[in-house]
């Protein structure tokens, strides 16, 4: 199904902000194409017209080319438009305009490690349980402290991100070991995950479906395989899954631990 969605240019965009990224990419490429073609025509013309041949002599006198100044000014002006008109507003929106609590965002923690993405959901209480590095183990990848009451309904998934459609998602990104880069191509969101730092991001999906999460930063031998699944559910589907997972399974796990 994915194959039919993906063409040779940009992948589909299922985010609320992504159309602005795509618009900028497309505008720049039209601009680049126009410059290159215009420039190439002049270049090719010169190569043919001014080839060495009998009776033709180069001119020592240099041409007065006012056009070059104008073309340089135009390029600079257009770059200024791209910068101020297109790029900066998108960046400000992504960095500064986080969804407010009235929009009922879903809060998530994403913990990257060699070579997997862990997704930490707070559960029904909306509070994340305490985590600590020394608790991390093969069966407790994010080091969740099960003695913390807030941890009781927490849900942790591995390489399996499930989110509701049309609802803002706010994630805090952290890494256990090395630098990774959290990337959902169809969501037009990419953020390096840097150990020692907690970096918040937000996004909002506009379509349900199955997609992939990628790692964009070389993180070791299995970097190439550090991919996760992204499932965008309808609101009802998500609630059903969330209640089911955060309610039942996790408690069982806890009991097993004891």
């Amino acid at each position, binding site marked *: 199904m994915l194959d039919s969605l993906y063409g040779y240019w940009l992948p589909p965009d299922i985010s609320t902000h992504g159309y602005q990224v795509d618009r900028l990419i497309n505008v720049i490429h039209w601009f680049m194409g126009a410059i290159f073609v215009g420039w190439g025509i002049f270049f090719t013309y010169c190569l043919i017209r001014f080839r*060495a041949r009998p009776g033709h002599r180069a001119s020592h006198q240099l041409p007065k080319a006012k056009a070059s100044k104008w073309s340089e000014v135009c390029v600079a002006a257009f770059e200024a438009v791209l910068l101020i008109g297109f790029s900066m507003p998108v960046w400000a929106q992504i960095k500064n305009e986080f969804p407010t609590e009235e929009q009922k965002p879903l809060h998530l923690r994403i913990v990257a490690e060699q070579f997997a993405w862990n997704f930490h959901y707070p559960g029904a209480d909306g509070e994340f349980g305490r985590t600590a590095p020394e608790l991390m183990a093969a069966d407790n990848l994010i080091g969740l402290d099960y003695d913390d009451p807030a941890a009781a309904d927490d849900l942790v998934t591995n390489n399996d991100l499930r989110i509701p459609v049309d609802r803002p998602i706010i994630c805090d990104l952290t890494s256990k070991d090395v630098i990774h880069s959290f*990337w959902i191509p169809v969501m037009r969101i990419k953020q390096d995950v840097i150990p020692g730092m907690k970096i918040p991001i937000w996004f909002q999906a506009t379509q349900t479906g199955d997609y992939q999460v990628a790692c964009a930063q070389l993180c070791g031998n299995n970097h190439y395989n550090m991919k996760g699944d992204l499932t965008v559910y309808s609101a009802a589907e998500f609630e059903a899954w969330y209640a089911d997972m955060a309610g039942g399974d996790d408690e069982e796990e806890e009991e097993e631990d004891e």
Partner: protein
Amino acid sequence: MSGEHDHELGFWRKYVFSIDHKVIGIQYTITALLFLLFGFTLMMVMRFQLAYPGTEIPFLAKIFGEGNMPGGLMLPEFYNQLGAMHGTIMVFLGVVPLAVGGFGNYVMPLQIGAPDMAFPRLNMASYWVYFLGGVIMLGSFFLPSGAAQSGWTSYPPLSNINPGQTAWLFGMVFLITSSLLGSVNFIVTIIQLRAEGLTFFRLPFFVWAQLVTAFLLLLAFPPLEAAGVLQLMDRLAGTSFFMPSGLVVSNQVLDIAGEGNPLLWQHLFWFLAHPEVYVLILPAMGIVAEILANNTRKPLWGYRSLVYATIFLGFMSFIVWAHHMFMTGMGTTMSAFFQTTTMIISVPSVIILTAMVISLWGASIRYTVPMLFAIAFLPMFAIGGLTGLPLGLTASDIHLHDTYYVIGHFHFVVAPGTLMALFGGIYYWFPKVTGRLMNNMLGKLHFWGTLIFMNVVFMPMFLQGMHSVSRRLYDQTVYEHGKDVQDLTIASSWGAWCLGIAQIPFIINFFASIFAGKKVGSNPWDATTLEWAAPSPPPHGNFETEPVVYRGPYEYSPPEDPTGFSPQNKAPA
């Protein structure tokens, strides 16, 4: 005077531990060309895994060892070693030593009419320190830990915990030291040893390019040298300059001091590595300017604006580095600054390229082999430069950062761009070095093969990147979007192998022409700059009589001179 001096020197002092800038230049050129071939070979091996992931090639197991390629299947850690070493070798052991150490050393003193570099022994030291750095880098493949495998950018904490990195850091310290020694020498030589009458605005553009490049090396490399030593301390002395607290690798808490910051490395690294981009491109532009002026048979258009643009480019290159780090969590203020400087730095590049293209107007273009390479440089560099735009704007960089689009972008700058210019330079100055021309037919074969296949290699990468394929993937087909564009990867790989075949005429031409090339006089191209006033090959001490300069560098087709060109040292009638 020089002849007698030559006879006193034995073989070792004359050809191996020589202090003559020309011998050192040749040593740099040969060594760097071998490293380029080696670095390219690593990539041709990697391209097989990329095109046909998981396929076994048994004979490669014999070459690279069962530990790296069991049964001929490349392991991811070996793939990462090849990737890190491809980048390191091409940049630090190939292109820079060839452009600066090779061309700079050989041509620059001749072009300014100097008998040698200002500090010949320092020059020799620079080569041998580089050579040691290269031996360490190559030798690292044979260590039990293998070669470095954290990318040429070596971001900690990965590089701090990965095997193979220590040798890489030692190698880098040597390579950086070599560049620092060389750059001091270049600056002093250009400022102090210019021939009588050779004012700054009569310098060939190549010399200007080398001067600005030397300043970039001198000012940008020390932070990376410091960073390299800090990373060595992290690895060997238990410090934590780049290691934050609470690191957990494979669910084991690391026993480290902590409290360091991995981003510090990125700042120090890119503070060098962005100016480094201009270290790669400026000498190439210098070579192209020389070849263009000579083969258009007219002065360069806008010589002064070329010089000013180059100096401005040099300055600006120090304040754009963080555009490599837009995705590290940068806020709006910082990103606004670095996006703006990045857009500004494109302006001098546009000026330089425009001046070169307008120089064609009113020309009488001789399509010699060096000229073909110089002409091809222009559109190839233009593609490389233009595709930098969407990467320099944060919003479009969100999608394109760390994808194949980036790989395509900088390879267009460095491979079809810089390497084309460097090939052109080899064909252009070969008769100066050997007294013989390279073969024209083989040269054209080499040119067309290289131009076509370089585009076959790098063009698909833009589409792959647009289609969201991350860089540095051992096997992109694990992703659905990777599967979609796998046919582009295969095309690119075949392009790389054909590009390898296209270099065979060059290798044959290069060695055969040393012995059997057509013998020519000291100025076969009817050129105006001072290197052509020296005999070919120039003796120790370079010039028979000290040259005096009377005019600018590119007096081609002056109306008053019936010969069609007025060399810089030709006395006015």
